[in-house]
């Protein structure tokens, strides 16, 4: 779901680049030295995991990982997302230079929302067991794809109305094509967070019993 260059108009490029810059500044603010290896290695894992193609019907998808990054890195998500996308654009031409801002926003926004929602649920003591945590993480993973693809569609619509014209418009196809990705991402995030909780519970900064911990 990375937008390549040539699609956005100059106003959209300016606004999304500024928004991504703001998110990056917010993420870097107060970042401690000992967090650098954690964020870096999570970025490398995110970059590598995004290269895995998983078959769905006649096509294949790669994990979106927005929700998962939010749950694992919280407010530092923008650093991991921006670095991962920069590496993907530079070395794999996945995404682009002028769209790097938008692609960062598309992935960081769901990550931050997922992290915030999970924290709220934990504070209200709605997550009490490992199963709850895995299931809610799965829902947040699915929600992150919905949020990301909706932002993508909205920006396409604002950039040029031609992308929304007709029954088989680019936006309609985009939304339809992501339905299996939403379902897949939900299952995937459930499995990944369940696995991390089972093997290294300490790696999840947001979990029941540690609700007061701030990121």
């Amino acid at each position, binding site marked *: 779901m990375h937008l390549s260059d040539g699609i956005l108009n100059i106003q959209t490029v300016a606004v999304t680049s500024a928004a991504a810059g703001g998110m990056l500044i917010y993420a870097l603010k107060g970042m401690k030295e000992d967090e650098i290896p954690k964020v870096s290695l999570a970025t*490398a894992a995110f970059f*590598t995991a995004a290269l895995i193609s998983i078959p769905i019907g006649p096509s294949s998808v790669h994990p979106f990982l927005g929700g998962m990054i939010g749950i694992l890195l919280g407010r530092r998500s923008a650093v991991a997302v921006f670095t991962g996308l920069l590496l993907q654009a530079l*070395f794999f031409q996945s995404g682009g230079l002028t769209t790097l801002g938008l692609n960062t926003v598309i992935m960081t926004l769901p990550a931050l929302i997922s992290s915030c929602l999970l924290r709220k649920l934990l504070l209200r003591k709605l997550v009490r067991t490992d199963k709850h945590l895995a299931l809610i993480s799965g829902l947040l993973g699915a929600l992150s794809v919905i949020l990301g693809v909706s932002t993508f569609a909205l920006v396409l619509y604002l950039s040029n109305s031609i992308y929304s014209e007709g029954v088989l418009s680019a936006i309609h196809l985009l939304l339809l094509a992501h339905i299996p990705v939403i379902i897949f991402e939900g299952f995937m995030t459930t499995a990944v967070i369940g696995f991390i909780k089972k093997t290294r519970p300490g790696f999840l900064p947001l979990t029941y019993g540690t609700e007061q911990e701030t990121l």
Partner: protein
Amino acid sequence: MKIKELDKGERQEKITWISRWEVRMKLVTCIVIAFLLVPVKNPLALGGYAAFLLAILLTARLSLHRVIQRLLLLLPFLTFLAVPVLFSGGFPPSPARVEIVLLLVLKAVCTVFLLYMMVFTQPVHLLLNGIGHMNLPDKLVSVLFLSWRYVFLFWEKLCQTYKALRSRLFQGGMNMRAYRTYGEVIGGLFVKSLDSSERVYKAMLSRGYTGKSTVAAAQKITLWDWLKSIGMLISVAVLYFFS
């Protein structure tokens, strides 16, 4: 293309005017050009500029085959957007729609050429060293350097896991069991990464890490580097004139 090839086969080893162009000047020039191409609305002029950029890449003695391979990576995404834009208004497509699609494709192609120029005309360590001297936030640069280093390590681990899965007759597919396996593989990747992060931090501290990545001395920016950058920016001015 395999991830391992990124620092080997594809890299330009021949000394040409582009490989001698100072990395920071080259990066800034290419990024500025990419942004300057956004408002261009003339497909013919843009086509001419794409041909100009390709000619420049060829003067750097880069493999045309590799450049085409890079362009092919864009094909699925461009097709996904271009086909509905062309035909959602009926058949045959109107000239306005054809123009939009041409602009979309040509801008994407130009940026691929610029990215290729930025990344594949010098070894990665020189590229990263140049980025390290661009006055970006230290923490961001540290994250970029470390991530780049660990991508290869994780990719190797992932390939080993894949081999192990295949040896146990794992065939993937669309079922809950397969998805759970994929989830555990990705989860394992994150666990390994976070497991190693503490060791990496201790190793960094023992080597005198103070929150700033150490980079080699920056290349000197010469008059020739300025001339190359100005020349490239003039080429965009010519493009603006014709469009």
